[in-house]
């Protein structure tokens, strides 16, 4: 079966290609994988500041840093049926490790330390996603990531698990929303693509079909 099918141009990025792209993207913009209060967000190139200035005074001194590892993807069909969230038709799963540093209490005067009572939480997160067209015109366009569902593992309490999934889904939606893949990645910047079909997640890659502009 041909790659182009009934079209003239085919572009596909494989799982490893997406992984490499996400690696390059989040290495260039690491703050999209780390969100922290002012005690942690001392360098906003590395950590996105969570603004807590409007919180009442008695909550000041509480701090948090939420960090994601650089995600990896599994594009349908699923690599293993035992995955936390196996991708279905036209879906892919983004997997990442999450570490939450929670600072309970005001900083102390200990030299070099953030002080307070620090709680560390680690778990795995899977996000079921679908590729979407963000914009498309002859010769230009880009593909984005739509978050379908988030699931975490390693948290015993169902209620806390759901709260974390809710919060992390919001953060991840924002972070993945920045990970835009222009058509020219699919076409190696050498061919001006007019999108006719896709993006489609299938056969372990994201695929687009079209014609030369």
């Amino acid at each position, binding site marked *: 079966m041909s790659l*182009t099918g009934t079209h*003239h141009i*085919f*572009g*596909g990025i494989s799982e490893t*290609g997406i992984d*490499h792209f996400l690696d*390059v993207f989040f290495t*260039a913009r690491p703050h999209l994988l780390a969100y922290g209060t002012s005690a942690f967000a001392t360098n906003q190139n590395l950590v996105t500041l969570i603004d807590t200035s409007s919180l009442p005074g008695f909550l000041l001194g509480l701090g948090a840093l939420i960090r994601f590892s650089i995600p990896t993807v599994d594009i349908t069909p699923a690599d293993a049926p035992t995955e936390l969230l196996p991708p279905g038709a036209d879906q892919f799963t983004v997997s990442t490790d999450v570490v939450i540093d929670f600072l309970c209490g005001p900083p102390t005067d200990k030299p070099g330390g953030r002080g307070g009572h620090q709680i560390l939480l680690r778990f795995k997160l899977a996000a079921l996603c679908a590729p979407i067209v963000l914009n498309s015109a002859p010769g230009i366009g880009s593909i984005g990531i739509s978050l379908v569902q988030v699931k975490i593992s390693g948290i015993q309490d169902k209620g806390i698990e759901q709260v974390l999934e809710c919060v992390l889904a919001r953060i991840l939606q924002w972070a993945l929303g920045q990970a835009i893949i222009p058509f020219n990645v699919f076409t*190696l910047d050498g061919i001006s693509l007019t999108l006719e079909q896709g993006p489609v997640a299938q056969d372990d890659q994201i695929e687009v079909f079209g014609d030369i502009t």
Partner: protein
Amino acid sequence: MSDITLAADQTAVTRLLHDAETLLGTLSKSTSGSFGPFFASAGASVSFSGGTVTLTPPRTIGLANVSLNYALDLSFGIDLSKFLPNFCLPQVCVDIPCVGKVCTPTICVTWPTIGFNFHYADSLRFSADFEVLPHLQGGDWIIDVRILSIPALDLSVAAAAILTAIGIALGAAVSAIPFIGPLLGALVAAVLAAIGVAGITGLLGPLLSLFVAGLTFTIYKEPAIQQVLPASGPHDPVVSIDVTALDAVVQQTDKAELVITASIAA
């Protein structure tokens, strides 16, 4: 599986090649030497257009009916005395009453060497196989398609037309020379016979073949490091990918496609 796969069917590759023909633009070369019995210098400008693509595994692109559009500028030097007999008008004397004998001088005609320029533009078609050649050069990934062998260029029709046009140009160039009127037809016929179709093809064939030998169209040329996202704020710098490997092959399934694969650095 490669990181990025790009496939183009024959229709798309045809368009890529037509774009590459336009990108190649007009090429120029010049030569000089004997042209039949004459000395001539010749300049030629050539461009390519059109053609239909046939893809053949593993790396061949057949291009049929490519138009080779050429413009010739020829400069001839021709010694007319080699074609026309030198002659003298003898002295003629007449006895005129009351005046005496009056004689005209002997007039000898020596034919000059003349130069004339000739411009001719036309096109011819050829078909040839090209090889797909991906390579990294100076920080750019390039996919060239290079001709495999020099095709036969059919110049017979063009040569006859050029010969006729040269005759007309020659006639115009020498028409102002005194006494040539009665000899003009014979001169043109003698010159054209001396050049002949073989003379034209003997000049044009090698000259145009220079343009076709090693003919290379570039269908892809992009930097190995490609910016994919611009900077979008103080904490969001440019995002670029580094294409570390690139290949291009022809695959035949239910239709033929040029398949380009690339790896990007993590």
